């Protein structure tokens, strides 16, 4: 099971019921394969950085779900078939989340160590390469 993030652009002139129907469909695909839909974020209408299919705007939707690779394949296939979706991007984020978690822990550990040891020494010379003259 992997965690994916799926950002896709729906045609701006699509009715909100159409979008909801699409989302429901996708939810069905994920649930059907034993995955878990973690969140749906509707960013709403945004200007595109460049025209896609001659459109300057798009309705962005972000999904996050945990599922296997075959689910991604199916969802992407549906996106390609559906004429609602202009563009999509799938990013696998579980390893990235793990890495971020690790970094955060490291930061906290270092922050705990610092107040005791590093602070007094650092105050002496705020800029490297500048000799501090003591009288």
């Amino acid at each position, binding site marked *: 099971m992997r965690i994916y993030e799926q*950002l*896709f*652009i729906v045609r701006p002139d699509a009715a909100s019921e159409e979008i909801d129907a699409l989302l429901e469909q996708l939810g069905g695909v994920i649930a059907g394969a034993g995955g878990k839909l973690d969140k749906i974020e509707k960013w709403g209408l945004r200007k595109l*950085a460049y025209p896609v299919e001659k459109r300057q705007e798009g309705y962005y939707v972000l999904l996050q779900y945990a599922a296997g690779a075959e689910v991604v394949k199916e969802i992407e296939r549906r996106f390609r078939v559906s004429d609602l979706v202009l563009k999509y*991007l799938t990013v696998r984020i579980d390893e990235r989340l793990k890495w971020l978690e690790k970094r955060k822990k490291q930061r906290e550990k270092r922050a705990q160590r610092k107040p005791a040891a590093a602070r007094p020494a650092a105050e002496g010379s705020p800029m490297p390469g500048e000799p501090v003259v003591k009288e």
Partner: protein
Amino acid sequence: MAETKGGKPVSASQQPTGTDKAVVTRRQYFRRKKVCRFCVDRIDDINYKDVKLLSAFLTERGKIVPRRLSGVCAPHQRRLSNAIKQARNIALLPFTTR
């Protein structure tokens, strides 16, 4: 800072302009050592969704600003450029603008 080294007072026109190292090159102008913004601000997550952050590292034409100009360190530049390319793919950022 570099201007304390020479001992002479420095006029406003000779202030660091924000380029490379703390080296005085040919009298007039100084170079200040640039620091990586991601290291300083402790930003771990360079995400393709963060359009505001990423667009700060694009030129007017939509090119990625090179390290030698922005001062970003190599590991962060790598993550940054990946994020920008992802954002371009989904039309959050431009490939190019006229």
